[in-house]
C-alpha cells in the first residue's frame, strides 16, 4: 500500500499551508481534495484580506490561493484533485475515490482540513429552487462566472452575508436587502458600510417568513421579529427577488474526525478535541482550519502551518527546539488575529458598547450599516482638524485585526500601533500628498481622501471603486451618502488604478464643498431618489 509521511485531506488554506510546512521540513506529503480545483474557499474570495503584512493583508483571497499552490508545487507536495476521501480507518489508512476506482493509502500522520459547510435555516419555501447558500451563490459567480440570479435577498449579516452581498453587486446582481434576526449587524462594520453606501438596505431584527413561487423563487416575505425571534404579525414586507441567499453561519465538516473515532467537543458544531498544535485524541491525527472550529482563512493558514510543523516534529524532521521556536512564532501571529472585539472569544457578543480605546461604538453602523456623519467625526481616523488640505478620512470604527493603512502611508500619517486591532488614527499635522495608497490598501474600503477646495466652493472626494463600468473622467452623476441616498450632483475628475491595486480604482469626484464629509459613493447619471 502506498504510504506517505503526511496525508492531508482538503486542499484549502489550512491543508495546503500544512502540506507546504511539512514538505519544506522534508516530509513526503500528499494532499487529497474532492474538488476539481484546489484552494478550498480561497478561490471564491475575491476581496482583499484583513490582517497585517505577515498575514498577507490587502491581498485578495484567490491570489493567496495561487501563491499557496505555487508553494505547494515548489515544495514537492503531491496534490490529488477530484479525489474523494471516502473513509478513514484504523492505523492511519484512508480510502480515496478517484475516477472509476478506489485507492487505499496510509499516512504516518494524517491531517484533516475539510473546512466547513454552510448552516441552513428552514422557512416556508426554503426548498424552492432559487433559495441557496450564500456560498453556493459565491461559487457560481466567482468560480464559474454565472450570476446566481438577478435580484437577491441576503439572509444573514455576518461577514459571509456582507462579503457575498458585495460580490453579488460586483457580479452585476442586485441585492434587494440584507436581513438578520439579530438586532445588530454581525459582521465587520466596514463590510456593511460598503453595501449601505451603494444603497443596499439592512433590516435588522427581521427574518424571512416565506420564499414565494411555485417552481422557483419569485419573491420573498420578510417580517420583524420579537425578542424570541418570532415574526410579529403585521410587519410583513414583500420583496421582489428571484434568489434568496442564506448566510447564517458555518459548521465544521468533521465527519472524518468522528469516523476516525476522535474525542469530540462542541464549538459551533462537533469538533475534535485537540492539543495546542492541532493533534486530536488519536496520536498522529491532526486537524487544522474550520474543521476544528470556524474562523477565517488567515487563521486557517497559520493553524495549518502549526499542525504541519507538529507532524514534521512527530516524524523526526523538525528538532524539538526548532519546532518550539517556529510554533511559538506562528502562535504569536495567530494571537494577533485573535484580538479585538471580533475575536473568537467574543463570538456572538452583542453587549459591547465601546471600542478597546473607549470610543462609543456607532449605533447606526450596527443597526443600519453606515456611520452617521456626527459619529464619524468622533473617531481618530476622521476627527475634524486632523489635517488641512487633502487628507485621509478613515471610517474604520471597530477593533478589527488589520493594519495595511499604517504601512501604506510613507509619510507616517496613519498610525495603528503595535496592536493590529487598534483603531487607525490620522496624525495631527499629517503631511498628505494625496497619493491614495491608503485608500487602495484598505481591505475594508473605509478610507477616503477629502480635499476641500475652499476658494472654488467645491471639494474632491477619492473613494475606492470596484465595479464595472468604471466612470470616466468628466462623467456626471450623483454622489451618494453613507446611507446610499443621493446627497448632491457630482462629477468624476479622475479614475486611476495600477497593477498593485489589483482591480481597485481610485475614483475622485468633485462635489460641493459642504458635501465633502457626506459624499461617499458615485453613481453615473441623474439619481432621482
Amino acid at each position, binding site marked *: *500500500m*502506498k504510504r506517505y509521511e503526511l496525508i492531508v485531506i482538503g486542499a484549502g488554506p489550512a491543508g495546503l499551508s500544512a502540506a507546504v510546512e511539512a514538505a519544506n521540513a522534508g516530509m513526503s506529503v500528499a494532499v487529497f481534495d*474532492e474538488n476539481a480545483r484546489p484552494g478550498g474557499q480561497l478561490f471564491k474570495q475575491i476581496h482583499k484580506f484583513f490582517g497585517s503584512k505577515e498575514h498577507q493583508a490587502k491581498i485578495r483571497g484567490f491570489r493567496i490561493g495561487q501563491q499557496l499552490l505555487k508553494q505547494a508545487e515548489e515544495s514537492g507536495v*503531491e496534490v*490529488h484533485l477530484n*479525489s*474523494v*476521501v*471516502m*473513509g*478513514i*480507518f484504523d492505523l492511519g489508512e484512508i*480510502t480515496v*475515490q*478517484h*475516477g*472509476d*476506482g*478506489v*485507492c*487505499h493509502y496510509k499516512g504516518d500522520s494524517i491531517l484533516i482540513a475539510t473546512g466547513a*459547510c454552510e*448552516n*441552513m435555516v*428552514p*422557512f*416556508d419555501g*426554503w*426548498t424552492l429552487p432559487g433559495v441557496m447558500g450564500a456560498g453556493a451563490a459565491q461559487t457560481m459567480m466567482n468560480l464559474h462566472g454565472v450570476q446566481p440570479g438577478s435580484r437577491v435577498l441576503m439572509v444573514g449579516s455576518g461577514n459571509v452575508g456582507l462579503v457575498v452581498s458585495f460580490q453579488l453587486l460586483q457580479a452585476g446582481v442586485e441585492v434587494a436587502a440584507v436581513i438578520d434576526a439579530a438586532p445588530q449587524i454581525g459582521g465587520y462594520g466596514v463590510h456593511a458600510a460598503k453595501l449601505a453606501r451603494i444603497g443596499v438596505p439592512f433590516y435588522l431584527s427581521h427574518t424571512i417568513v416565506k420564499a414565494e413561487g411555485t417552481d422557483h423563487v419569485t419573491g420573498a416575505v420578510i417580517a420583524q421579529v420579537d425578542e424570541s425571534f418570532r415574526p410579529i404579525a403585521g410587519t410583513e414586507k414583500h420583496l421582489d427577488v428571484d434568489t434568496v441567499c442564506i448566510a447564517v453561519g458555518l*459548521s465544521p*465538516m*468533521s*465527519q*472524518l474526525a*468522528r*469516523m476516525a473515532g476522535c474525542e*469530540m467537543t*462542541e464549538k459551533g*458544531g*462537533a469538533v475534535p478535541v485537540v492539543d495546542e498544535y492541532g493533534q486530536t485524541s488519536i496520536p498522529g491525527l491532526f486537524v487544522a482550519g474550520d474543521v476544528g472550529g470556524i474562523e477565517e482563512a488567515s487563521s486557517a493558514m497559520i493553524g495549518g502551518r502549526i499542525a504541519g510543523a507538529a507532524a514534521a516534529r512527530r516524524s523526526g524532521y523538525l528538532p524539538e527546539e526548532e519546532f518550539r521556536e517556529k510554533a511559538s512564532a506562528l502562535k504569536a501571529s495567530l494571537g494577533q488575529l485573535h484580538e479585538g472585539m471580533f475575536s473568537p472569544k467574543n463570538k456572538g457578543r452583542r453587549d459591547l458598547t465601546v471600542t478597546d480605546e473607549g470610543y462609543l461604538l456607532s449605533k447606526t453602523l450596527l443597526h443600519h450599516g453606515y456611520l452617521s456623519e456626527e459619529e464619524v467625526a468622533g473617531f481618530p481616523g476622521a476627527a475634524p482638524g486632523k489635517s488641512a488640505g487633502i487628507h485621509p478620512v478613515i471610517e474604520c470604527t471597530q477593533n478589527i485585526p488589520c493594519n495595511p493603512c499604517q504601512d501604506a502611508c510613507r509619510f507616517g500619517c496613519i498610525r495603528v500601533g503595535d496592536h493590529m486591532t487598534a483603531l487607525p488614527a490620522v496624525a495631527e499635522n499629517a503631511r498628505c500628498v494625496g497619493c491614495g495608497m491608503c485608500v487602495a490598501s484598505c481591505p475594508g474600503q473605509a478610507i477616503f481622501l477629502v480635499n476641500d477646495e475652499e476658494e472654488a466652493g467645491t471639494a474632491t472626494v477619492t473613494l475606492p471603486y470596484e465595479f464595472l463600468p468604471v466612470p470616466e473622467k468628466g462623467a456626471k452623476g450623483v454622489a451618494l451618502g453613507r446611507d446610499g441616498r443621493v446627497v448632491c450632483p457630482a462629477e468624476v475628475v479622475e479614475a486611476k488604478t495600477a497593477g498593485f491595486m489589483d482591480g481597485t480604482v481610485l475614483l475622485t469626484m468633485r462635489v460641493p464643498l459642504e458635501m465633502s464629509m457626506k459624499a461617499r459613493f458615485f453613481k453615473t447619471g441623474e439619481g432621482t431618489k
Partner: protein
Amino acid sequence: MSRLLDRNREIGAFVPQQDDDLIICRCEEITKGEIRRAVHEGMWTLTEVKRFLRAGMGLCQGQTCGRLVKGIVAKELGVRPSELEDTTARCPTRPVEMQVFGNEVHGHE
C-alpha cells in the same frame, strides 16, 4: 459513553405548531412535525429519530439537516443541542457507485 436518559421523564404532550409541515430533511422529505412527534413517541436520541423517520438517512446522509434535526429534538426534550450525541459518521463521505467502490486499484500513478 451515552448520557443517562430516563425515558419516563415527563416532556409534556405533543402540541401542534404552525410550522409543523416545514420540510427539515430535504432528501427524505421529513417535516418538523414528524420529528417533534417522534420525540414524543420516545425517540430521544438523534440516531433513533433517524432510524424511525429516515431523517438524515437519504442521499446526503444528514449533512444538511443534521444540525436542524438536532435543534428540534433538543428543544422538544428541553436540553441543549450539544447534549445530544451526533449520529455515527460512516464511510463513504459521498455517494459512490458500486462498480467504483468495488474497483480497488493500487496507487495514483
